[in-house]
């Protein structure tokens, strides 16, 4: 089998011991890599009863067989752990260059357990791995940490994935940042890293990554490259970045505004992808082997950075009632420097804004206050003043003040930038997401709003459960492969299956690919049931089920869970409580 680096490194941080073992063939066959590896290794190793912040939790970095093989957009790695924010087994995905470097250093995955007595970082170096002192790095931002490690190793080819001060301070939605601006963003993976006294992983190497059938892979690569280059959607991502969505989502009247009180922001244009392109954009930027380049390098008022991507652009912008693009970009940069999830941080601030305006919390912040918002981002990262309470996430914060209904979250994780009341299938995908409030575990926005691969009526519930299941399973397989999810606008399941077959030598067809995705999904689900999740959790905030939208075409609509959930469970082979049946578990090899 090929496409793999061949080894997994296990670092026991409590003992300060590093062990290298071959990547098991059965793990490759059953779970491919990336998210599949992460969820399998994590759920094998960790007792479901543990506290996610305890040293018994495990953090798994894993690339996929398509990462770093020169396939367009094959750059991703996944970080899997038990989320301290949601309590669920989850994974967060990042791009950039680090995933490729980890493989070039000789490793398909890195499994981190225990807790170091003092701050350390793990250095992966051409087949070897060692833990090194990181006491001098503690307290540094992600940019400072990256520069300091590259300097002390005296090698500019080194790539660094690290936490910032927010991870050290155990902010429940702290993220992990590689190459200063790419984030494994969600679920608090950075807090788990901080709880282990692990500041960073650095990777260096030039080991070969071979495909099983190089000639065949070249053919499939070319087919895939052409599909991506010819696809209009991929071109738009290059020209305007992901924030091009601001206007189309707003014009559909499904852009959550002021903590989901409405779904239309009058000044959306001021923070749109089009406005970014003509104001602060310096140049587009891509991850390893990317031919799309949706990243945005910006420069304004002497400040340089990247983004904002659509999600933080929305969350710091319309969701906080703010139309000041520079403030939004600055807030996003603070999140990158301190290592904060740039969805959960602003969405938690939006929750505070609503509660403060309505008098449930005594605080001067109001919707539209950009200066106050920027101050709160830093306070959260440093756990200072009210930031210490907000660092627990919107659900815990709003509950503390007696009003959990103001937290726009699912399974305690803040919802992304779409209002489910006007996009029914997306609502189902988010409510049933095994990692909580989420949009990239099954991106139903694509058929329901963007019209790809075909146009589905967003107001209709009929037929959506099947679409959601298929999208969730396919996404799990893509996340396992190491490919960027954005390829799915241009590619179909058969393309991923052909890429995997040529790269690994395993014969994977479309049905086999979807089955691997379904296996990953069900394994996450089964583990999360052991952690106490059930039907009651597969839902969205009461506001979205009970308060109709107030304007535009979807006026009067709510999210209609009851029309979809039972059918979704049935299609998945789950019982009425959402538990996979014995038959389904057996079918997937999870009995």
């Amino acid at each position, binding site marked *: 089998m090929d496409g793999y680096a061949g080894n997994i490194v296990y670092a026991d941080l409590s003992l300060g011991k590093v062990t290298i073992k071959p990547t098991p063939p059965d793990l490759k066959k059953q779970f491919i890599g990336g998210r599949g590896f992460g969820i399998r290794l994590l759920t094998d190793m960790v007792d479901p009863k543990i506290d996610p912040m305890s040293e018994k939790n495990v953090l798994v970095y894993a690339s996929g067989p398509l990462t770093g093989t020169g396939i367009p957009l094959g750059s991703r790695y996944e970080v899997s752990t038990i989320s301290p924010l949601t309590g669920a087994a989850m994974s967060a995905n990042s791009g950039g260059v680090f995933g490729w470097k980890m493989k070039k250093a000789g490793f398909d995955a890195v499994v981190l357990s225990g807790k170091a007595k003092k701050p350390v970082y793990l250095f992966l170096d051409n087949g070897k791995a060692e833990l090194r002192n990181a006491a001098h790095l503690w307290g540094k931002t992600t940019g400072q940490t990256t520069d300091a490690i590259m300097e002390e190793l005296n090698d500019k080819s080194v790539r660094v994935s690290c936490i910032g001060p927010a991870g050290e301070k155990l902010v429940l939605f702290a993220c992990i940042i590689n190459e200063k601006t790419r984030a494994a963003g969600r679920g608090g993976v950075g807090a788990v890293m901080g709880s282990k006294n692990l500041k960073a992983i650095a990777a260096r190497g030039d080991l070969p990554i071979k495909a099983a059938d190089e000639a065949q892979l070249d053919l499939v690569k070319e087919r895939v490259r052409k599909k991506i280059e010819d696809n209009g959607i991929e071109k*738009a*991502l290059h020209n305007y970045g992901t*924030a*091009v*969505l601001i206007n189309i989502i707003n014009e*559909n009247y499904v852009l959550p505004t002021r903590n989901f009180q409405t779904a239309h922001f009058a000044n959306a244009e001021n923070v749109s992808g089009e406005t970014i392109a003509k104001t602060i954009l310096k140049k587009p930027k891509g991850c390893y082997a990317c031919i799309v380049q949706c990243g945005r390098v910006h420069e304004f008022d002497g400040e340089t950075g990247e983004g904002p991507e659509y999600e933080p652009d929305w969350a710091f912008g319309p969701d906080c009632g703010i139309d000041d693009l520079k403030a939004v970009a600055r807030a996003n940069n603070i999140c990158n420097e301190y290592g904060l999830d740039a969805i959960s941080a602003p969405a938690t601030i939006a929750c505070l804004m609503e509660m403060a305006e309505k008098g449930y919390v005594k605080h001067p912040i109001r919707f539209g206050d950009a200066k106050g918002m920027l101050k709160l981002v830093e306070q959260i990262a440093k756990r200072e003043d009210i930031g210490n309470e907000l660092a627990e996430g919107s659900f815990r914060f709003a509950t503390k003040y007696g009003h959990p209904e103001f937290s726009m979250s699912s399974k305690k994780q803040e919802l992304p930038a779409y209002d489910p009341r006007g996009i029914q299938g997306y609502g189902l995908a988010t409510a049933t997401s095994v990692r909580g409030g989420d949009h990239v575990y099954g991106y139903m926005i694509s058929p329901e709003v*963007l019209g790809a691969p075909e146009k589905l009526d967003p*107001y209709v519930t009929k037929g959506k459960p099947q679409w959601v299941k298929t999208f969730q399973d396919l996404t799990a397989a893509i996340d396992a492969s190491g490919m960027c999810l954005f390829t799915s606008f241009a590619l179909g399941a058969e393309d991923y299956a052909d890429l995997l077959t040529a790269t690994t030598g395993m014969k994977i067809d479309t049905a086999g690919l979807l089955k691997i995705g379904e296996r990953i999904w069900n394994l996450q689900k089964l583990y999360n049931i052991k952690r106490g999740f059930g039907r009651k959790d597969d839902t969205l905030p009461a506001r979205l089920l009970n308060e109709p939208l107030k304007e535009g075409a979807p006026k009067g609509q709510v999210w209609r869970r009851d029309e979809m959930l039972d059918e979704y469970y049935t299609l998945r082979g789950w019982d009425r409580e959402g538990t996979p049946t014995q038959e389904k578990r057996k079918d997937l090899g999870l009995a």
Partner: protein
Amino acid sequence: MKVQVKAFATFREVMDSQFDLDFLQGATIRTLLEDLIERYDGVGELMFASPGTLRDFVNILKNGRNIHFLGGLDTPLDDGDVIALFPPVAGG
């Protein structure tokens, strides 16, 4: 009757981003697009794969509702309508 037209992303490279147009009763989205093709060079090529067939992933909204779920290109225009024109876009 008066209709407001809003263009986004690459469509702004060939037409104004926001403007009003007057139409007679009975006009449809198709009438509007034919009008735009006459007014602005490049609109037809960007919007249509072949005469009468929109390119993949082009989305046209009438007051926030995709015309695909109304009457397609034959969707009638009404006084005060806001018509939003989107080329293929995506994000996440």
